[in-house]
C-alpha cells in the first residue's frame, strides 16, 4: 500500500438532491440569465413570452461577459429573488 496526496481541489463529492419541481409556474418568479453570447436575448425573449403566458413573473439578468463566471453578487441576487432560473447559452 502506498499513500499519495490528493492533487484536487477536494470539493465535496457527496450527492446533491435536485430542488423539488414546482407543480405549476403560476405566480412563480423565474429568472432568465443571459450569459451575453450573441443572440442569447432572442432565445430568452421567446422563453419569457412562454413563461408569462403560463402565469410566471419573469426577471431578466445578464452576465457581464460569457467568458467569465457570473459575479457572486449576481448569483446571490438570482438565488434570493427567484424561485427558478433558466440560463441561456447561445450563439
Amino acid at each position, binding site marked *: 500500500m502506498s499513500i499519495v*496526496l490528493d492533487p484536487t481541489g477536494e*470539493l465535496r463529492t457527496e450527492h446533491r438532491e435536485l430542488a423539488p419541481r414546482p407543480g405549476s409556474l403560476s405566480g412563480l418568479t423565474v429568472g432568465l440569465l443571459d450569459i451575453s453570447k450573441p443572440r442569447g436575448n432572442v432565445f430568452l425573449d421567446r422563453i419569457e413570452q412562454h413563461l408569462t403566458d403560463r402565469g410566471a413573473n419573469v426577471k431578466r439578468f445578464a452576465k457581464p461577459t460569457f467568458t467569465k463566471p457570473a459575479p457572486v453578487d449576481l448569483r446571490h441576487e438570482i438565488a434570493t429573488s427567484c424561485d427558478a432560473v433558466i440560463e441561456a447559452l447561445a450563439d
Partner: protein
Amino acid sequence: MRDMGISDNDERPALPDGLVAFVKQDCPTCVLVAPVLQQLAGSGTCTVISQDDPSFPEDAAWVVHDADLSLSWHHQVETVPTLMRVVNGQPTEQIEGWERQRWEAFTGVSNLAPELPDFRPGCGSLSVDPTISDQLAVRFSGSVMTSRRVELAQLEDEWEAMWDRGWSDGLPVVPPTEARVLQMLAGTSRPPDEVVAVVAPDLVECTVEKVAINAVMAGCRPEYLPVVLAAVEAACSDEFNIHGLLATTMPVGPVLVVNGPIAKQIGMNAGVNVLGQGNRANSTIGRALQLVIRNVGGGRPGGVDRATHGNPAKVGLAFPEDEASSPWTSLAESRGFRADQSTVTLFPGEGPRMFVDQISRSPESLTKHLAQALLSNVSPRLAVQFETLIVLGPEHMARYRDAGWDRNRFLDELTGHLQIECDTVLRGVDGIEEGLPPLLAGATIGKFPPDGIHVVHAGSDAGLFSMIMAGWVTGSIGSVTVTKEIVP
C-alpha cells in the same frame, strides 16, 4: 565550529545540557573516539546519543538511544561524531569528526586520549542516509502538508491509479507521495499553506502545497516550482482569465515564456528544438500549470474545457527566451521588468506554426514577408481582436542585428505592413462569406490591437525560420498577456 543558524527552536526536542555527542557504532571514527567519550562522560559533563547500537560506546546511563532518529533529524546532524555544546536544551555550537586540538579546545580538557591519531574525518549521520532520509522527513515534517491522504490498495498499480482517479492529462503522472511533495516544497521559500490563487473554473483556493503536488505529477524538479507558482498566479489573474481560455471553443492555451536568470539556472532550453521535446524543464513546467487547472480548478476537456479541436501544446508549453545571444532587450524588459529579474509571461495562444524565409537578406524584405504570414493569423479576413507571439529564430534575428534594427524599429516597420484595407476582405468580397463587417467599408485597420505583437528570440543557430502563434480574443472579455515576477 559553526553557527547553528536554525529557526524554530521550539519545535526541536530538548537535549541534555552540557556536552552532547552524536555517534553510531557503524562509524569507525566513532569507535575510535569511544575512549574519549568515556573519559568525558566519566567527568559527568557529556551525554552520548547513539543512532544505532543502544549500548555503544557502553551500556551506561550517559548513553541515550536515538531509536527513531528524532533527535538526530531535528537537530540536523549530518556527520558523526558531532559534538555539541547544549544550553537550555538547545545546541549553541558544534564540531564534527575527530580533531584532537579542536576537541580539547571545545571541551576544555587537555590531553584527550593521547594514543589516538590527531585527526580522523567523521561518517555520514544515519539520519541523512539516502535510504531513510525521505521517510524521516515525512515522519517529522509531513504534518506541514494538509492535503487529503489517498491510500492506494496493495494490488493497485500506482501509475494506473493516477489515471483511474482522473488526475492525469493522458500521459503518465508521477505519484505524488508525501516524500516527493516534501522535496518539491523545498524548491520554494513560500509556506505550504499560502494561497497562490483562486483557480477557475471551480474557483478553488489553491495553496503552494497543491501546486507542489501537481508539479510532482508533471515531472518537475523542485527548482522549477517557483516558475510554476508564478505561472499559476498569472493564469488565474483577472486579466489573463484562464476560465475563458479554458472554456472557449477555440484551440488555445497558456503559452509560458520564461525570462531572466532562472531560465539558465534550472536548465531550460532556449536553443535547438526549443518548442519541442527533450528538455525536462521546458516539458514539465507548462504541464504542471495545466495539471493545476485540471485537478485543483476542475477544468477538464468535455467539462468546462469546450475546445473544438484543442492543440497538442495544451498538454503544456513553456520555453525561455535566448537572451544571451539576442541583440535586443528581452520580452520581459519590453514589458517593464529588469534584466536581472526572473519572470514568466503567459500568452493566450494556439500551438506554434512555422514561418519560412530562406531568401531575404535585408531586414526590409524579411519584415514585409513576416507581415504577410501574420496577416493569415486566425484568418486573413479577420483582424484586431487577436494578439500574436513571434519566436524569432537566431538566423532571422541576425538580419536585424546586422542592420542595426532594435525591437522598436522592428515593431514599427512590421506594424506598417500589417494595415488592412478592409474593402479587400469585407464579408462577401471574392465570393467568401466570412470577413470584416460591412461597417468597416472604406476603412484601413491594423491586423493586431496596439501592443498586440509580442516578440521573443529563441531557437537554434541553424535555420532561416521563425515561429508564429496566434492569440485568443484580447481585452476585458478575453485574455490579456500577463507577466509575473518569479520569486524564490
